[in-house]
């Protein structure tokens, strides 16, 4: 640590607390010196600082010491008074303004790095004008009456030799300029007389005469002669001008132009002599005098008691704070003068002791201002004499708080005290404490507070370790205060420094505050570009309140408008671009019919296209070969797009603010290099990618405007608060080459251009549509190889409904168009859901209106559809070729098979003719989504008719599942020729209301008949008229024809339904397929489905006949018999007819059983479900059979238990062979012993079926209940 005396504060103290010399001079003297551009005092000032005066001094003690450094302060007599507060204030303001103007040029530079600030040497951290300001501030407080060190020690009377009657002038000067204050200053001061001789225009004779006169009048010691202006021309140029540091406003080289080096030496000598010969000895003497006097009156025990007693009496009086109570002759003032003089003579021991002496006096007198003043001096004395730190701080603290207690009047003094205190702490490296002192002396006046806060902030940098957060905070506070008193330059300066602290902060409010305000202020001083740069940082302020955001934006746009030009900003935060939403859609050999189809997973398409695009080893290898020949290897990895076809980029913009913003001219930034020089470009690639964003921007602009080799789309939109918008941007290259999408640009409110480069951000792998090429880097994903334009097929389906009811059958037209001149050929189509869509046979096939074309009698449609249904690829006829805007219309049948939301994909493959390109084929991918509403749901139950072997009962349950909408049932048909169907009830009784309301369920019954007579009669059955298979289910419009279910769309849809609904492998013979055709009732509201369906078909396949064992049999016999049991037992003859319904030969054994079915029998005990046993060779129908039997056995009729038994007579076991599809009759007989009702179900049929030579199956059938009533005949 530096010694206190040598610290900057110590030096300052030595200068500030130094003897004051009052200068009185005539106007002619001033005139003489003004030739140099300086007043008299100013001329002398540089020579009042003595570095090494080396004067021996002896004060109170007897020891001599040598005074090394000494300073005199010269003031005009008129200045020796307390300065006017207002004037002082203005002067301070002037100082600040000046400093601000000087800094103005630096404002536009970027804020310094925080490390730079910290590495600066201490002296450079705070601007130099602070020292000056502080000095000026302290000066405003000089000459206060409670302190003595500002009281003049000596008086310098100056008269020019040109003055008339110079001797009288001397006397007049002193008399007219009495000491200004009212009695606190000692009027008996040292007087010194100085005669000024101007060498330019005064004669030496007169001067020497006046001098001798003076010497005789005032004494030779007190008189001096000063000769000046020796240079006649007045153009002396001083190296290291001594006045330059004192007076900066005038150009320094003119100062002292008439003073030669000899003159300066003379002035120097004069002042040195004045100080050492006169002032110091005078003060020395005065100190000794006062010391003696005071020792006599105040020192010693007796004197102190006396003093105390006397004070006590006085202290009871009113609280006197007026300084006037102590005149210069009062003991207290004397002691204070003693102390101050001792201080000025650097005898700090004496000074301290005298200060201590009066401290208590002032305390008792409650003269607080004096008290504080003394405390202050004590603190300084402690500091400069390097004594106890604690004491000095304590003294300053007391002084400060005492001044503060005085209120407004004491504030200025407190200010000076605080400044000194802070300086003192700084000298001791207690910067943190110094900062808090600065903070305390802020006061209310903003300008002053601003300066103090700024000084405080610099203290925080100087603390070890640096307290940067505090530094920033105080700078900001200071800046706000500066702004408040219109010192914008300073405000910007402080904020700029603060930015270096807060640059990377995540404290959002702080960041916004700083950048917003500094931006505003830059705008005030006219640096709009810098203002805009700063304001940009607050635009992304979504967390602020709406009002704040509005203010931010409004000011921002105001400033931007003022700059009058369009700024291009890289990385503008408004709006925010969601890079993960970036999606590039382009078409190479894969083309898309619509936006929706482009967004479908590539894998779906690939699996769909697997068998229609040329396979790897045949077609693909060819064009790969071709490609490798045509293209450098590098391009194989880049994406391919076709000239004239647009590349689309989807990008999401998000408005982070609550205010809506309008964004205009959103477009892509692209580069297209044509083929001719692409090789060159490839070589340059690595270097160009490393270029900065600015340069590549320029490159863009040139490319865009220079060749118009591609066209860009522009999008305008408005984003509401917090909204997101997915924007589709396109670029359409028109030439071959390499297209690169570099970034995106947009205009914000027409004044700011935002630019965002894609490369700088990693593009997610998802965005690359070329998923096959996984090794693609993000940059490559935005790079395209543009190849020569190719024909492109466009396709659409006309009037495809989006919503329809399940079962709805529609006729649609697929329209394909090729706009280019070169033809395409070899069209193929594949549909993902053949169940829903089925292509028609030939172009424009319909002659009659749908749906009438499906009706019977329209002979052309009865032609069976011969297309191979197993593969779902549909090849268009070979002769179909498209070119030159010709369109192909191809019929399509749509049937909504199942309810739900269905995605239909279909892809059309085509090949280009005579185009020598790397692309041989392309595919058109179309994607539609259908919403299928539920409509009628049907279920069928078929049970064998108990009475007829060939006939079956069908129960059809229909439920209307639709939410709204009534359906009319039109027709029910069985598919195939085997089953004939007929109504059981009249149509009217089935459905009296004629339409089925929403939610309504309906059951109706039909009879179906197996038309096959036997295995050999198949051909005959086929020739049966088909009308047998349809049932008309409506009564009105009798002339309306039934639909022909074998016509092409219906039949083909039925085929796919069959394969979807049922087991596709095993086609069981005993199943029936039904098609129910219904239509929407006229009355139902059309709101749900936009266009009304014409017909709906409901296919129900593989409805098996319950109990379809290979056998069916019936027991024929009488129902009721009268018999006279008194005569004999009753023998009843029965006939069992067994039909073999299967295709194989079966042998049947009939076992009759005389015992009653026992409840404990294993078949019945297990109930129903588990009652069947699995026999491996048995077919599935078998299980059903035994199940039915089991359940029947489980609940035998109760009457049976009471009925008397009967016995089977005749054969108890018969075995018969039954040919396939043939019938056998077996006679049976029972004997009944008493009247009653008998259940003749106690028999079993054991059958063994051999369908083929190898496979045999067997099973057991329980008998049906057959009730026989036997009555006693009368």
């Amino acid at each position, binding site marked *: 640590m530096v010694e206190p005396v040598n610290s900057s504060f110590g030096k300052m103290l030595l200068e500030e607390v130094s003897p004051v010399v009052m200068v009185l001079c005539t106007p002619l003297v001033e005139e003489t010196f003004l030739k140099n551009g300086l007043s008299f005092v100013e001329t002398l000032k540089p020579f009042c600082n003595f570095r090494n005066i080396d004067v021996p001094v002896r004060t109170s003690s007897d020891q001599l010491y040598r005074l090394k450094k000494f300073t005199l302060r010269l003031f005009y007599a008129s200045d020796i008074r307390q300065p006017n507060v207002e004037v002082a204030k203005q002067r301070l303001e002037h100082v600040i303004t000046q400093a601000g103007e000087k800094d103005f040029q630096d404002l536009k530079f970027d804020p310094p790095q925080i490390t730079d600030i910290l590495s600066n040497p201490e002296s450079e951290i705070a601007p130099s004008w602070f020292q000056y300001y502080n000095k000026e501030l302290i000066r405003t407080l000089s000459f206060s009456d409670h302190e003595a060190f500002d009281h003049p020690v000596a008086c310098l009377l100056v008269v020019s030799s040109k003055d008339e009657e110079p001797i009288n002038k001397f006397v007049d000067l002193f008399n007219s300029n009495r000491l200004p204050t009212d009695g606190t200053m000692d009027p008996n001061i040292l007087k010194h007389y100085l005669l000024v001789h101007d060498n330019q225009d005064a004669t030496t004779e007169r001067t020497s005469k006046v001098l001798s006169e003076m010497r005789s009048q005032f004494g030779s010691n007190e008189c001096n002669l000063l000769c000046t202006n020796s240079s006649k021309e007045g153009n002396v140029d001083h190296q290291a001008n001594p006045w330059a540091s004192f007076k900066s406003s005038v150009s320094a080289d003119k100062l002292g132009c008439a003073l030669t080096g000899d003159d300066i030496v003379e002035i120097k000598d004069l002042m040195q002599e004045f100080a050492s010969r006169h002032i110091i000895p005078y003060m020395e003497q005065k100190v000794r005098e006062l010391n003696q006097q005071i020792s006599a009156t105040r020192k010693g025990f007796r004197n102190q008691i006396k003093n105390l007693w006397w004070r006590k009496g006085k202290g009871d009086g009113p609280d006197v704070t007026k300084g006037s109570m102590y005149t210069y002759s009062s003991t207290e003032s004397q002691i204070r003068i003693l102390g101050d003089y001792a201080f000025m003579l650097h005898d700090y021991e004496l000074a301290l002791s005298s200060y201590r002496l009066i401290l208590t006096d002032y305390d008792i007198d409650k003269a607080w201002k004096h008290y504080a003043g003394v405390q202050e001096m004590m603190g300084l004395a402690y500091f400069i004499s390097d004594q106890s730190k604690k004491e000095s701080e304590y003294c300053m603290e007391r002084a400060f708080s005492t001044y503060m207690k005085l209120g407004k009047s004491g504030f200025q003094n407190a200010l000076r005290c605080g400044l000194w205190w802070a300086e003192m702490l700084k000298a001791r490296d207690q910067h943190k404490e110094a900062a808090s002192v600065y903070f305390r002396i*802020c006061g209310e006046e903003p300008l002053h507070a601003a300066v103090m806060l700024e000084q405080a902030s610099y203290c925080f940098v100087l603390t070890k370790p640096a307290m940067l*957060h*505090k530094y*920033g*905070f105080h700078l*900001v506070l200071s800046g706000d205060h500066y*702004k*408040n008193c219109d010192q914008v330059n300073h405000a910007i300066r402080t904020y700029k420094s603060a930015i270096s602290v807060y640059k990377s902060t995540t404290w*959002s409010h*702080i960041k916004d505050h700083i950048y917003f305000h500094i931006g505003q202020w830059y705008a005030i001083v006219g640096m709009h570009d810098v203002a805009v740069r700063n304001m940009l940082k607050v635009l992304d302020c979504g967390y602020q309140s709406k009002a704040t955001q509005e203010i931010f934006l409004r000011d921002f746009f105001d400033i931007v408008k003022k700059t009058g030009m369009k700024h291009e900003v890289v990385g503008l935060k408004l709006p925010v671009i969601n890079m993960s939403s970036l999606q590039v859609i382009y078409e190479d050999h894969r083309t898309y019919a619509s936006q929706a189809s482009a967004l479908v997973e590539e894998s779906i398409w690939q699996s769909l296209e697997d068998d229609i695009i040329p396979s790897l080893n045949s077609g693909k290898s060819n064009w790969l070969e071709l490609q490798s020949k045509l293209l450098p290897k590098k391009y194989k990895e880049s994406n391919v797009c076709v000239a004239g076809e647009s590349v689309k980029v989807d990008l999401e913009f998000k408005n982070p603010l609550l205010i809506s913003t309008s964004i205009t001219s959103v477009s892509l930034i692209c580069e297209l290099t044509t083929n001719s020089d692409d090789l060159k470009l490839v070589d340059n690639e690595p270097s160009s990618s490393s270029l900065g964003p600015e340069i590549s921007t320029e490159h863009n602009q040139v490319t865009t405007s220079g060749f118009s080799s591609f066209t860009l789309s522009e999008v305008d939109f408005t984003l509401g608060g917090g909204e997101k918008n997915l924007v589709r941007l396109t670029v359409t290259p028109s030439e071959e080459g390499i297209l690169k999408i570099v970034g995106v640009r947009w205009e914000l409110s027409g004044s700011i251009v935002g630019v965002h480069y894609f490369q700088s951000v990693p593009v997610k792998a998802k965005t690359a549509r070329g998923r096959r090429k996984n090794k693609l880097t993000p940059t490559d994903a935005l790079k395209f190889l543009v190849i020569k334009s190719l024909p492109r097929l466009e396709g659409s389906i006309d009037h495809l409904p989006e919503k329809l009811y399940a079962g709805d059958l529609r006729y649609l037209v697929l329209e394909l168009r090729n706009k280019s001149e070169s033809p395409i050929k070899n069209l193929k189509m594949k549909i993902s859901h053949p169940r829903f869509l089925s292509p028609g046979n030939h172009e424009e096939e319909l002659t009659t209106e749908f749906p009438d074309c499906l009706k019977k009698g329209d002979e052309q449609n009865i032609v069976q559809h011969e297309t191979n249904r197993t593969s779902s690829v549909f090849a268009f006829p070979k002769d179909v070729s498209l070119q030159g805007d010709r369109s192909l219309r191809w019929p399509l049948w749509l049937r909504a098979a199942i309810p739900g939301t269905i995605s239909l994909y279909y892809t059309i493959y085509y090949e280009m003719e005579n185009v020598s390109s790397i692309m041989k084929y392309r595919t058109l991918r179309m994607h539609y989504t259908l919403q299928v509403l539920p409509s009628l749901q049907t279920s069928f139950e078929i049970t064998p008719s108990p009475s007829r072997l060939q006939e079956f009962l069908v129960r059809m349950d229909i439920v209307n599942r639709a939410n709204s909408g009534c359906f009319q049932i039109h027709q029910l048909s069985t598919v195939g020729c085997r089953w004939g169907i007929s109504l059981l009830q009249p149509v009217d009784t089935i459905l009296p209301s004629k339409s089925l309301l929403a939610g309504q369920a309906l059951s109706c019954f039909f009879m179906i008949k197996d038309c096959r007579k036997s295995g050999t009669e198949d051909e005959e059955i086929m020739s049966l008229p088909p009308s047998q298979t349809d049932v008309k289910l409506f009564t009105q419009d009798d002339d309306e024809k039934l639909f022909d279910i074998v016509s092409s769309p219906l039949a083909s849809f039925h085929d796919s339904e069959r394969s979807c609904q049922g087991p596709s492998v095993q086609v069981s013979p005993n199943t029936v397929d039904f098609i129910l055709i219904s239509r929407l009732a006229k009355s139902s509201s059309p709101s749900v489905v936009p266009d009304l369906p014409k017909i709906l078909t409901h296919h129900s396949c593989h409805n098996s006949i319950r109990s379809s064992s290979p056998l069916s049999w019936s027991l024929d016999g009488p129902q009721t018999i009268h018999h006279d049991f008194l005569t004999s037992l009753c023998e009843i003859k029965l006939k069992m007819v067994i039909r073999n319904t299967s295709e194989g030969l079966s042998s049947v054994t009939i076992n009759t059983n005389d015992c009653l079915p026992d409840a404990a029998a294993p078949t019945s005990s297990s109930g129903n479900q588990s009652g069947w046993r699995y026999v491996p060779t048995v077919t599935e129908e078998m299980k059903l059979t035994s199940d039915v039997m089991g359940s029947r056995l489980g609940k035998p009729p109760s009457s049976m238990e009471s009925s008397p038994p009967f016995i089977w007579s005749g054969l108890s076991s018969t075995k018969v062979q039954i040919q396939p599809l043939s019938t056998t009759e077996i006679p049976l007989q029972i004997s009944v012993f008493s009247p009653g009702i008998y259940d003749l179900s106690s028999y079993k049929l054991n059958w063994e079926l051999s369908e083929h030579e190898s496979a045999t199956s067997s099973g057991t059938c329980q008998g049906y209940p057959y009730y026989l009533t036997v009555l006693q005949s009368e």
Partner: protein
Amino acid sequence: MANTACFIIVGRNDIPIYEAEVGSAAKLTPILSIWQREDAAQLHQFILHAALDVVQDLAWTTSAMFLKSVDRFNDLVVSVYVTAGHTRLMLLHDSRNEDGIKSFFQEVHELYIKILLNPLYLPGSRITSSHFDTKVRALARKYL
């Protein structure tokens, strides 16, 4: 309820990970008359941000987590609680209810630990849990 102004959790890199204005906004003292009312949030951040310096010094001088009031700006006092992971819970307030503040900090610390235990929470990132927010505000009502 006393006037409490602002509660902030500052992560290890001086990044605020949670902010809440709790209680009624404190009066602004005359020296800041130049700041408008709506700037209160900014002022609070500035004060708390500036207090980080002091916390840095103090945190290593004691083993206690609760550092009591570390800094003041006019009437506003900054109380700080430093967790073992050097996450700082900072409260700007003008009441002198030290016990309440201590309990408040301890409870918030527990909540914070629960947040840390969430495997989906990346330490040092902003706490966005609304549950946490409600709990903190409830604690502020209870203790401050």
